[in-house]
């Protein structure tokens, strides 16, 4: 049976960052007890319908889960351990924002059972942090990072680059500084303008101008080069790790494994009675909680994912990984042979153009292919 990856969503933040389209909300006051109870209730409901099964990872994401009471985190971990069969090396990650308040609570999260922390540093430059609307300074972020490294066995942090006006030299310098602070994992995202964000409007008005494609490509190549010098290798489009230190939880998504999503707006893909269900929860926090209180869960709709849809989803996720897609596993998960899911002609041309490579029963995108993955997928999927 596929081991489970468990995602738990905390939908609140201190402020809404202008680039962010995650399901995050700002509230004057948060009823911690109510949301803790609702998360625990929904977890119990999900576990009841899934039945006992092995569990490989838990991920507290957001929003800003470092704003949760440590006790809630502890309770949820304990519940999950009891309801599922945790694998011996169970990975438990929590996303944290590096403000001083949150940094002060890191030890409590460790106490609760969290063994991996992911800090949203975003930038080490004061003016960029302001531009990104962050609530912390670079010094606070560095302090939080140093503290986290003392407390957690595994620490990762996020940076956003390819920011307006950022030169390659400036980014290389900032990245080198970050790499010196890093342990064994980094997430390095190019800034994306998402619909429904403040940046979207500024961008449409021309107030924000992103680097053009050629510059973005150069920045991307520079990133891999710098990270490589520190032994961090790209294992996914935007993720870099020392071999063996990859985020196991996120790997489950990209390998198209089973994952359950608890909390407002959380999505899941879970095998139930031989079908793969796509699950989705109410997005708005309060109505979600009301549903849970009334029905025991906040699920909106659950639909089985058809075989051809599974094939497309697995391609979409799997080709992001450096390791690519295992052909045998592709067939097991989708019921379709890899070749039948691909446009043969584009496959041949992409292999020839060195965008794709195929060996040892795996199909993978090369670095050049990964850089153009959206277009490649658009052409490649049959």
């Amino acid at each position, binding site marked *: 049976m596929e081991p489970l990856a468990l995602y738990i969503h905390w939908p609140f933040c201190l402020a809404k960052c202008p680039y962010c389209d995650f399901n995050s909300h700002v509230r004057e006051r948060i009823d911690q007890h109510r949301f803790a109870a609702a998360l625990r209730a929904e977890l119990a409901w999900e576990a009841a319908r899934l039945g006992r099964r092995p569990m490989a990872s838990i991920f507290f994401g957001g929003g800003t889960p470092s704003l949760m009471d440590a006790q809630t985190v502890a309770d949820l971990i304990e519940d999950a351990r009891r309801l599922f069969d945790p694998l011996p090396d169970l990975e438990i990650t929590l996303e944290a924002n590096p403000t001083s308040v949150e940094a002060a609570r890191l030890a409590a999260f460790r106490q609760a059972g969290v063994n991996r922390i992911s800090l949203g540093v975003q930038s080490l430059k004061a003016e960029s942090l302001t531009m990104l609307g962050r609530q912390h300074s670079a010094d606070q972020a560095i302090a939080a990072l140093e503290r986290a490294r003392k407390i957690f066995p595994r620490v990762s942090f996020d940076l956003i680059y390819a920011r307006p006006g950022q030169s390659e030299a400036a980014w290389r310098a900032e990245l080198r500084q970050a790499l010196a602070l890093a342990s064994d994992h980094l997430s390095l995202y190019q800034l994306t303008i998402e619909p429904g964000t403040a940046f979207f409007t500024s961008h449409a008005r021309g107030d924000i101008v992103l680097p053009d494609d050629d510059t973005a490509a150069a920045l991307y190549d520079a990133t891999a080069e710098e990270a490589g010098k520190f032994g961090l290798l790209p294992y996914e489009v935007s993720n870099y790790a020392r071999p063996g230190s990859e985020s196991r939880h996120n790997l489950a998504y990209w390998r198209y494994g089973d994952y359950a999503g608890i909390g407002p707006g959380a999505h899941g893909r879970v095998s139930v009675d031989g079908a793969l269900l796509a699950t989705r929860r109410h997005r708005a926090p309060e109505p979600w909680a009301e549903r849970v209180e009334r029905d025991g869960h906040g699920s909106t709709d659950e639909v089985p994912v058809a075989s051809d849809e599974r094939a*497309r989803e697995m391609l979409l996720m799997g080709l992001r990984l450096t390791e690519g897609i295992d052909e045998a596993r592709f067939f097991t998960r989708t019921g379709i042979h890899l070749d039948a899911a691909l446009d043969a002609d584009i496959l041949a041309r992409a292999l020839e153009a060195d965008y794709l490579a195929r060996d040892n029963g795996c199909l993978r995108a090369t670095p050049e292919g990964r850089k153009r993955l959206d277009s490649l997928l658009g052409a490649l999927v049959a």
Partner: protein
Amino acid sequence: MTDTPLDHIRNFAIIAHIDHGKSTLADRLIQATGGLSAREMTEQVLDSMELEKERGITIKAQTVRLTYQAKNGQTYVLNLMDTPGHVDFAYEVSRSLAACEGSLLVVDASQGVEAQTLANVYQAIEANHEIVPVLNKIDLPAAEPDRVKQQIEDVIGLDASDAVMISAKTGLNIEGVLEALVHRLPPPKGDAKAPLTALLVDSWYDQYLGVVILVRVKDGRLKRGQRIRMMAKGSVHTVDQVGVFTPRMIPTDDLGPGEMGYITAAIKTVADCNVGDTITDDRVPATQALPGFKPSIPVVWCGLYPVDADDFEKLRESLGKLRLNDASFHYEAETSAALGFGFRCGFLGLLHLEIIQERLSREFDLDLIATAPSVVYRVHRTNGTSEELHNPADMPDPSVIDHIEEPWIKATIMVPDDYLGAVLTLCNDRRGQQADLTYVGNRAMAVYRLPLNEVVFDFYDRLKSVSRGYASFDYQMDGYADSELVRISILVNGDPVDALSFIAHRSAAEARGRSICAKLKDLIPKQLFKIAIQAAIGSRVIARETISALSKDVTAKCYGGDISRKRKLLEKQKEGKKRMRQFGKVEIPQSAFLAALKMDA
């Protein structure tokens, strides 16, 4: 309502060079006779098509029936036809002229006689029209009515001493125009007792009424319920509705001799409706049909293909409906290796082509690809046979061609002295041969022979630009002549794209090949794989460009979240792709086809 005695009817067309104020004068005449209330009035109210309003030009001729109480106390019916000024819509003018006995020749008093003034007035003279010169825009400080009157007499040979001086814009002396219509134009002739003959002047498709026909009754009466016969076509229909335009459609019981109006007759097939046909009574048919119209001869052809191959039938139907409303436009089915099923369409010029394409997309909601426009060549084979070539893709192998002829035109260009040099240079660059150069005051009139091929693409735009808008231009076909012509094919990733191939004079071939490759490089967005673009004559490559692969296109963050949404985006992208046409596995945007062929100087 239409028992008007013949001597109280006047039928007239308003003719002029582009923008000299025909439609504005029509507005004033409608207003002065109370056809529309002030509230219903808009500027150039007869330009009812969205495209006409946007571009400020008349494309379709329009008819209005006005009732005017003259100073002599009598009430007259005035049937007005507003016509387009642009040379590409000359067929509209010629048909309107055939339906009338007189013309108002409008001349802009600040600009004077222009190329289209001449072209239109000659047509009116040929149609035996009585012509009343009208000097418009005398409100403008730059107006020089006396000079322009003199010009009308010198260049056209019309007596301009009692030309009507007006401002259509301010409404000055509209009364003078109305009185001139009544007293200077002849009434129509006709016989109410004779068998019905009515000229089919125009037709169009109305969503509610079906096919509507514009008629001019010569003899007899056209009544509701009557069985009518199209004399040339032979089809028989029953008249549903008869009426007139005020310009609103107002039903009447019948239309008497000398009148203009519309009928509907449950006509299903567009083919039953040919402009120029004579409508008669099926039971008491006339023996002799009316003269009808000379068919229009398209000078530019291009292929029109649906972007979505499934729209082929819809395109066929839409072309039928459009053709009903534009007899100067021709089409026949054809196939292309790259584009599949479509139509080869003939036009009177590039503006006409553009307008038809726009109308198809707006009025019929079609996405189209237009292939490179081409004139009609005559190919003579070594085996003695010859053929007309409308499509560069059909050009036979050079080894079987003995020689090719291309069409020439005689162009009349009027331009102020200051810009003459630039205009002559343009004509010479386009292989022109000067036939005449005369002066009318400080304006030069140059007559040139030019290969049509050199004119259709962008000559008019260039002429306007080198003369800062002051030059005017008209042309007539002027026979064929031998020429050194070659076909240039465009290859995308090594595959010839027949829709982009074109024919050019050997001397210009390399330059045009290079310019098209360079343009395509700008017009085709970077794609997943790099793209090679080549221009070739036969197997000899004369120009090449490479479009490099796009450098980066990947979603930065993508985890647990909503993969269903990402998958659906991908599926939509896929669907869109399926409907896109590929050339050598490359997506070429629709806009590239026509744009690529507009050559620059």
